[in-house]
């Protein structure tokens, strides 16, 4: 069975947690004791109806305030697919948690309150989803019951969303009018909106194509082979005296026994002699498989190196990076600040050279002349690294094109970056 990972995003109170509660409830994925607990919790809060949001808002502070602070992951399956849902927070203050949940998603559901239309957080989350290269975006126009299931209201939101999406180059958008509270167009088609002839949400989620090669976002085909080395396996035992295996996860492409490979950054070449998963010998490996590779030559390879195929397009190896960055920390990013840059299994120091522009979420314009980035800012920056990194453009390869920034003083992850090579 195939696995689809999706996230929900949108502004506060647009009904993300309620939608997930509804999906779980109507697909019969809620267990009796969970429902009893939610019923009791709703009652003790004085809610008249069962509050399905309490299924995912699991933290004490979230339940007290009725908001989502951090991502909650939920799991359900239908006869057609298995799903992993990341229910992400709407508050601007917790944007970093929204990015956390969305960064591994194949699809993003952006909720819009039919009464309020496209808001600042709708734009921010749509923009982030697009920068993250999430292949499909579903705009779920929620609370249709509160606008008398009006087709006109829905169409107006579609038009204004499309205008914004065009300015930000967001593609592959599907619009669905729903009422999460009552279940219209969530699992079952709504009788209240006969004018909507598309699939209800769950049916769409069950049938949308998922490329399991998640590293190739907008490109077709498999892409070139990339294998960041995680760990070198050397048993040094009497049974395996000479075994030397390079452990990692195939980031993209395909590798076969007999392939001529090149190790970066050294540039040394060798040949693949074995591909194994524990004791099983394989003839080839694809993303996202974790395997161990053995080579015909004893060459110097360690964690952070990348194995590629000698006959395929080579990745970039440079010390200057241009990245789209989402900033997460209260300490602002400043020009000339130093951070630890972690990319695949590699790590080096980096210094911020320039802030090329910051995106104004309200006007969608690029602001120049910015000297620092505050929490939740999205911008394009350039970074100079102490060692060359081996990378691809994020649009071609999510694994080798992504970086995180770590503050060397606090050890905190302070920013997420997507490398641009064009």
């Amino acid at each position, binding site marked *: 069975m195939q696995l689809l990972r999706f996230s929900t995003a949108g502004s506060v109170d647009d009904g993300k947690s309620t939608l997930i509660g509804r999906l779980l409830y109507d697909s019969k994925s809620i267990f009796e004791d969970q429902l009893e607990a939610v019923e009791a919790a709703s009652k003790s809060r004085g809610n008249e109806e069962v509050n399905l949001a309490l299924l995912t808002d699991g933290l004490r502070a979230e339940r007290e305030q009725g908001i989502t602070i951090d991502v909650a*992951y939920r799991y359900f399956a239908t006869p057609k697919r298995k799903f992993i849902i990341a229910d992400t927070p709407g508050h601007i203050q917790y944007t970093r948690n929204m990015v956390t949940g969305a*960064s591994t998603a194949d699809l993003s559901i952006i909720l819009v309150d039919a009464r309020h239309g496209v808001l600042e957080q709708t734009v921010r989350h749509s923009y982030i989803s697009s920068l993250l290269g999430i292949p499909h975006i579903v705009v779920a126009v929620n609370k249709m019951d509160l606008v008398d299931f009006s087709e006109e209201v829905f169409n107006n939101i579609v038009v204004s969303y499309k205008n914004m999406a065009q300015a930000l180059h967001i593609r592959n958008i599907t619009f669905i009018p729903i009422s999460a509270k009552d279940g219209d167009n969530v699992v079952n088609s709504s009788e209240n909106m006969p004018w909507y002839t598309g699939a209800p949400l769950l049916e769409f989620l069950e049938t949308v194509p998922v490329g399991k090669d998640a590293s190739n976002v907008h490109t077709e085909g498999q892409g070139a082979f990339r294998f960041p080395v995680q760990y070198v396996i050397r048993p040094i035992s009497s049974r395996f005296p000479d075994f030397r295996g390079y452990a*990692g996860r195939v980031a993209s492409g395909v590798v076969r026994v007999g392939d001529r490979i090149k190790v970066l950054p050294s540039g040394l070449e060798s040949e693949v002699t074995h591909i194994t998963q524990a004791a099983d010998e394989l003839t080839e490996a694809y993303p996202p498989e974790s395997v161990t590779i053995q080579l015909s030559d004893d060459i110097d390879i360690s964690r952070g190196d990348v194995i590629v195929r000698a006959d395929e397009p080579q990745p970039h190896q440079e010390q200057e990076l241009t990245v789209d960055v989402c900033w997460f920390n209260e300490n602002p990013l400043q020009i000339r600040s130093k951070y630890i840059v972690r990319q695949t299994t590699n790590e080096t120091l980096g210094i911020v050279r320039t802030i090329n522009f910051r995106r104004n979420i309200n006007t969608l314009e690029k602001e120049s002349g910015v000297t620092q980035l505050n929490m939740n800012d999205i911008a394009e920056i350039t970074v100079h690294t102490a060692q060359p990194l081996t990378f691809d453009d994020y649009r071609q390869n999510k694994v080798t094109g992504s970086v995180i920034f770590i503050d060397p003083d606090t050890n905190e992850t302070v920013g997420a970056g997507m490398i641009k090579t064009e």
Partner: protein
Amino acid sequence: MSNITHLKELESESIYVLREVAAQFERPVILFSGGKDSIVIVHLAYKAFYPAKIPFPLLHIDTGHNFQETIDYRDALVNRLGAELIVGSVQESIDTGRVKEETGYYASRNKLQTTTLLDTIDKYHFDAAIGGARRDEEKARAKERFFSHRDEFGQWNPKNQRPELWNIFNGKKAMGEHFRVFPISNWTEMDVWQYILQEKIEMPSLYFTHERRVFERDGQWLAAEPCIKLKPTEQVVTKQVRCRTIGDITCTGLTLSTAHSLEDIIEEIAATRVTERGGRADDKRSETSMEDRKKAGYF
């Protein structure tokens, strides 16, 4: 394009996480309870580093209130893998006055384990403790990162977790702090059993139907063992039961079941209408009991 199954994808993700732990930390340890999730973790670790030995010791926090089958299984497994076993004893924590034994009908050593766990982590200078917790188990666990930071008091701060982007894990920390790592975060109970069947992993007999002396309390069947004090009205009877989760005897609810095989168990889980932790008395103490225990440093 490879047509990869969900089990293969989950296995690959977990092996990736285990290898990151080996690469990023100096003294990692696997928290081994003898339950199905930690058994799967050990199996994944075996696969991740083959043909080398698992580069982590196993740590069992022993409440002293175990099913004998759990201890037998643990010792046989450690023996087979040639792994190092470390036991942290809750009895010892009680004897040395680190914790105080609860009393009454609902007395349990479940909560006391936290002190023993943190003391053991401290004693051996472990910097990463690998656990089998899954996000689908419980609503506070649904919020957990793969790499979950703990401060010098062993505390979890759920309101301010580190962002965790893509599969780039940040295991950096100050002296005295540590990480909890959850490689099977994204697995469900069903995934675990399907994987056990696929990999033909030998399981403790407790998971299969057996005859046991039990009594009913608050709608739950519990094992009639000396460590639980019976109320005057509670009657001990013999039933065909199995464990759906294995923890301390005092808080492990038993399921009436006739499941003899892994296939039977999978069929039973597919049809059940209650969650696996529905039988865990430790989660029922309050609405946020898991979150409260986790903040204090629990598994």
